[in-house]
């Protein structure tokens, strides 16, 4: 049976796609929202560390599965290897309704003003495609506010002196610190820094019909057992469905965007929950499948006018793949600083994000999310025993004495860090898989060294009896859950994939609405920015759509 034509298709029910679907559906457009996974709940894997989104050795709790999905990674010597979703270099994002917003740590960062103006702030960086966004912070500010209020954020809007100007406070009060957070707060304050409680997409009080967080240790990487974590799965997507205009089609793998001879999108080809090939037609197609899969889908959508993939006539699709270079330091206290108040991360310092002599960009420093026992078994100072009685003794005595102070360093984009499509390897449905290649810009290491140094100074001041740096940004390709940049927005079609509204150059009814749009990725977890982009792209589609075509 033929699918009924709709106004809009949204591919991917994550942070960006869930929001676009809701914006369009509430405005009266008929929408089909495609998600390759299904609904996820805490009961699927409860607090099982080995099948979480954080530690995936026995599989990803919320997908994708190892049976049907794979990618190809190009090694530094040019050889290739096939990687499964449960392997780190796959650069996985969850495949479920809500995607990463079901199991994330839920930090709710707004990027800073300079994050949108990296090139004009720092100038050209050799070997990099560092650039300004075509929009600035103030263009996105109203949409950050929407994200904070419609999805739900707890925080103190006065606590971070480095935060860009904002109009409204957060809808919920800030979280209190755990013992480690309090210690780091007091210490860094004494040092003249500006610590504050991390804004979180998590209920500090009862909100939106869902209860307050009860501070479990197993939070990041897991679904919330009481639904206190705020994602698109428990906010905007239910609103979209309730509007009567949005059909959520789960367990569907979209294979290709269909383009007609005039180069316009007419719909998508997809495999339904029974693996049957189908076609869904629409007036508009919005792709929000996260940086790797969005690029793969565009590249797999070849047509007469776009022989190298949709929007790829200038070879920019899949370029500038970036994530974050996590870096920091570790300290051991001579008492138990751990009080089992989850999710661990609660205190941030933003003094090392911009305006540091000689450093391009920077990043937030936060105390880390609680490590689960297996993950902790790998956390040792350089040279420590990795097995035997000594390792066991460390596990027993140091788990509650360790503080990790880390943060996401803003990566300097590299044109050759990229997603292409593999010429041979195909997935379960016969769709060519993503092929990841290139490496990050060497500057990342320099920036990470700076931040790790700062983190170690704070830990020493806090009384740590032993400290060591854990420096990120090493060679290799970035991406991971913070993946971004592969369909960057820009004013010049020759050096970008979409215009400043997320509309693909030359295809007026094809849009992108996820982190792929990010020209640069900020020194922060990007979820709230992706949500803001979802509201921004969605609202502009609604404003400019006349009922049958764009005004």
């Amino acid at each position, binding site marked *: 049976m033929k699918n009924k034509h709709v106004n809009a298709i949204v591919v991917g029910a994550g942070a960006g796609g869930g929001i676009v679907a809701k914006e369009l559906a509430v405005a009266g457009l008929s929408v089909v929202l495609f998600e390759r996974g299904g609904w996820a709940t805490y009961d699927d894997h409860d*607090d099982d560390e080995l099948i979480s989104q954080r530690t995936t050795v*026995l599989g990803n709790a919320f997908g994708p599965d190892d049976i049907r999905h794979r990618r190809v990674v190009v090694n530094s010597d040019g050889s290739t290897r096939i990687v499964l979703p449960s392997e780190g270099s796959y650069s996985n994002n969850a495949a479920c309704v809500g995607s990463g917003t079901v199991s994330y740590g839920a930090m709710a960062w707004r990027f800073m003003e300079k994050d949108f103006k990296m090139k004009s702030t720092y100038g050209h960086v050799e070997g990099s495609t560092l650039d300004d966004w075509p929009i600035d912070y103030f263009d996105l500010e109203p949409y950050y506010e929407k994200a904070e209020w419609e999805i739900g954020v707890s925080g103190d809007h006065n606590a971070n002196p480095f935060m860009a100007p904002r109009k409204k406070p957060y809808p919920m009060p800030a979280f209190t610190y755990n013992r480690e957070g309090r210690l780091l707060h007091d210490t860094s304050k004494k040092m003249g820094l500006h610590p504050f409680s991390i804004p979180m997409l998590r209920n500090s009080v009862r909100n939106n019909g869902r209860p307050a967080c009860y501070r479990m240790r197993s939070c990041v990487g897991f679904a919330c057992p009481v639904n206190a974590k705020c994602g698109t799965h428990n906010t905007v997507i239910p609103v979209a469905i309730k509007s009567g205009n949005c059909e959520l089609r789960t367990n569907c793998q979209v294979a290709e965007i269909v383009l007609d001879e005039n180069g316009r999108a007419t719909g998508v080809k997809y495999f339904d929950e029974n693996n049957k090939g189908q076609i869904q037609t629409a007036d508009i197609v919005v792709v929000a499948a996260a940086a790797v899969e969005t690029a793969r889908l565009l590249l797999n959508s070849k047509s007469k006018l776009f022989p190298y993939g949709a929007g790829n006539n200038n070879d920019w699709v899949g370029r500038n793949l970036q994530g974050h270079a996590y870096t920091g330091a570790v300290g051991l206290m001579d*008492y138990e600083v751990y*009080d089992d108040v989850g999710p661990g991360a609660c205190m941030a310092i933003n003094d090392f994000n911009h305006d540091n002599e000689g450093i391009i960009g920077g990043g937030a420093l936060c105390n880390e999310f609680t490590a689960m026992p297996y993950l902790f078994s790998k956390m040792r100072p350089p040279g420590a025993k990795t097995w035997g009685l000594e390792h066991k003794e460390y596990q027993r005595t140091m788990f509650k004495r360790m503080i990790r102070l880390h943060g996401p360093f803003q990566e300097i984009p590299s044109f050759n860090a990229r997603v292409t499509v593999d010429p041979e390897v195909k997935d379960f449905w016969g769709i060519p898989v993503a092929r990841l290649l290139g490496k990050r810009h060497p500057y990342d290491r320099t920036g990470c060294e700076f931040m790790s140094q700062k983190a170690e100074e704070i830990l020493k001041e806090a009384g740590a009896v032993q400290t060591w740096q854990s420096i990120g940004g090493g060679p290799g390709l970035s991406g991971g859950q913070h993946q971004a940049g592969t369909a960057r927005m820009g004013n010049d079609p020759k050096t970008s994939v979409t215009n400043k509204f997320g509309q693909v150059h030359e295809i007026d009814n094809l849009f992108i609405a996820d982190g792929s749009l990010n020209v640069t990725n900020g020194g922060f977890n990007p979820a709230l920015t992706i949500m803001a982009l979802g509201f921004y792209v969605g609202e502009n589609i609604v404003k400019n759509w006349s009922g049958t075509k764009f005004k």
Partner: protein
Amino acid sequence: MFVPACSGYDSVWRFFSEAEAKTVIAFAEQIIPRDNDAGATDANIINFIDKQLTGPYTRFQEMYRKGIPAIENSSTNVFRKAFYDLEFGVQTEFMIKMEKGELPSEFWKEVKQADLFRLMLDHTMQGFYGSPRHGGNKNYVSYKMMKLDYPHVIGQNRYESKCATANLTES
């Protein structure tokens, strides 16, 4: 694709033969030995690894099937005894050599000894510190050892907070 191999009717295990299991048990006990707290054998690590090798770890079957004889042949060659029959201290000596890749190379033509070491080390840690639902960490022994409450009961997870707070005040 690798066809899941069966251990046969003469073994209580899903994948391992009883002799192979002895090697793995001895290896895992070296990784996490028993002291005042439970060790790898107590935590039933062999059950965890055996179970995963017929599930998500099917892809590692070949490593184990070829690697275990390499361990045993090396041991017989160097110490004139099966690895699982060696004294604990001698086993440790063997493990250190294997980790560094210093066992006689003639037995390690198909599997790299250091790679197998890392793989078995990692699987042992997973079985010991991961959720008991996968067949290891029997009776939550590792959580008990780390003083982590389990299961996690809503509103009642402030383990030993009195004692720890006293420490904080002193410092």
